[in-house]
């Protein structure tokens, strides 16, 4: 183990430069911020991820955010296990009817101020699964959504762009 650690110190980090947030994301978030009063949260956000019925593709790319290349935590963003510790809910999937109540309760358990980010094409409007007897539809049909990040699944870079935009706006 010591050898591996020393090797990584001498080789230097793999972490890549952050992508620039997109103007469209900033625009969507700015509108969301207008709608509610909120305290300045500094430069750190705790995220609770909620899979509301996704195929797991979005989860894989969200996981990638924590790898050495994207290194989410250097931005002050981190995943937490309880919605009670969270500032942000990161929601994936076409909300299944089986997950509707769990998503609602998770949202209510998250203290204010909070934001909801809907990740992936399914989270926007049910995607390919819209119209099924088992599916409600987009996340916004169940809880208010502050930002949509499209993709099937969105790449870690696209996810980072959205989250960095949220960080910029929430700090204002």
């Amino acid at each position, binding site marked *: 183990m010591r050898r591996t650690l020393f090797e990584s110190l001498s080789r230097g980090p793999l972490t890549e430069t952050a992508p620039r947030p997109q103007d469209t994301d900033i625009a969507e978030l700015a509108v969301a911020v207008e709608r509610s009063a909120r305290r300045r949260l500094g430069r750190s956000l705790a995220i609770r991820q909620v899979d509301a019925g996704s195929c797991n593709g979005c989860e894989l*790319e969200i996981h*990638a955010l924590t790898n050495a290349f994207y290194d989410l935590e250097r931005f002050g963003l981190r995943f937490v296990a309880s919605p009670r510790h969270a500032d942000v809910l990161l929601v994936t999937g076409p909300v*299944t009817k089986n997950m509707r109540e769990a998503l609602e309760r998770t949202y209510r358990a998250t203290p204010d101020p909070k934001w909801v980010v809907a990740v992936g094409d399914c989270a926007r409007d049910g995607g390919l*699964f819209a119209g099924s007897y*088992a599916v409600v539809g987009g996340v916004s049909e169940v809880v208010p959504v502050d930002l949509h990040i499209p993709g*099937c699944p969105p790449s870690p870079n696209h996810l980072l762009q959205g989250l960095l935009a949220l960080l910029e706006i929430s700090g204002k």
Partner: protein
Amino acid sequence: MPSLETIVAQGRAVETHRPWPRVPVSPELWTAAAGELAEGRATLLGLWGEAGTSYAVHMALLGEGNRDIAVLSLACPELEFPSIGGRHAPAIRLERALHSLYGLRPIGIPDLRPWLDLGFWDMQFPLGGRSAPAPQPYAFLPVEGENLHQIPVGPVHAGIIEPGHFRFTASGETVARLEERLGYAHKGIESLMAGAPLERGARLAARTSGDSTVAYGIAFARAIEAALNIDPPPRAHYLRALMAELERLANHLGDIGAICNDASFALMHAYCGVLRELILRASQSCFGHRLMMDRVIPGGVTTDLSSGDVTTLRNLLRQIKDRFPLLIELYDNTASLQDRTAATGILDAVIARRFGAAGFVGRASGRDFDARKTPGYPPYPGLDFRVPVLTAGDVNARIWIRIREVEQSLALVEQIVEQLPQGPITAPIETAEASGEGLGLVESFRGDVLVSLRLAAGRIVRCHLRDPSWFQWPLLEAAIEGNIVADFPLCNKSFNCSYSGHDA
């Protein structure tokens, strides 16, 4: 007791079903097949229902020796059928789900509580087209004893993970029983498939379980191709295998690290995460999508490899071969980590065999089955690889199986890149009047994926997708018994069952 061969021979196989026979049987023969399963002379591959012009249940079986496959079909005019689960436990959840979706009643099943139906749909039996009164509140299995407490976990649980509910009964720190309740990711894919054109069906299949999108794509495509008697060109077979092995590598490398992380050993997780990311970037570069979603289609594949892509893949192989041995050494030499993984979450070999435990879960507990070998499918018969099998059945064994399979997959990718035949990457498919029935069985990274479908007039009449997790989830309950609650994440990740694939 007639053998599977005899049962099949006694019926009249449906002509349009390929590549293995589908035989309508009588209730007596159906029950005889249950006997074969209970005696261990056949393995259950799938059990699903059908509604429409008439009701029926279908059962896919793997014969002794793992070579022959057959589907038995039983008409259910009275909306009921003799339960297989009454004699063979692996069928119980499949029959509970069948009943919850279609309303077909398994006679003699010991447990008919709903499965996948959590009481949130606006109807019962959504695929059976009948209304019914609302189901009773769900009763978890009773537990008797002193000093027992319940721990409910999920569906929102852990960190970044799919939704599922785990009801623990614990005595102090020790798990007396784990009972799962799944279905939170049920999207009704089977209903969306009915009447869908082939292209939409392929996209739905690819999103049944995102981490196995390539394997599902291949299984669906092979079922379509079997139904229509089409053979993709050799180059397409090789490119499919290349994508499948890259998917296997990416998942195994990510999982080895993630399992170690669930024992708080973040160093392995960090380094394995780097290797996984390198594979995803190579996949993006070669195939235009990090997960290679929608790259396998009926008839072939959508993207070809350039000579630049071949160089990219050779570089990827070299990078992984350079770094992976050090990680194996790191895992093997960290005593505190071995202390967590060895002798934890043991899956008994007898149970693994009875359940036809799929993939690495079975192979870490002595079950020597890999669909790439038996029944086998192109191009694997032309490639040189071994199927590692271990017997300890603990978390450590499930890590070592993945390590060995990474080595085999690296060798496969190397062979595929060197032997890639020239030629087209798709065979033309005349979809307008496409009709027939097909079955596909493909080895995803976690185990065999089964796809059964019927086509008529260019559309999918019905399509059933059976995730390998159906024969892994129940085994997690067996493996966790007697372990401490704190070892659940370790055990769960060592299985890495699919929630979305199972719920479908």
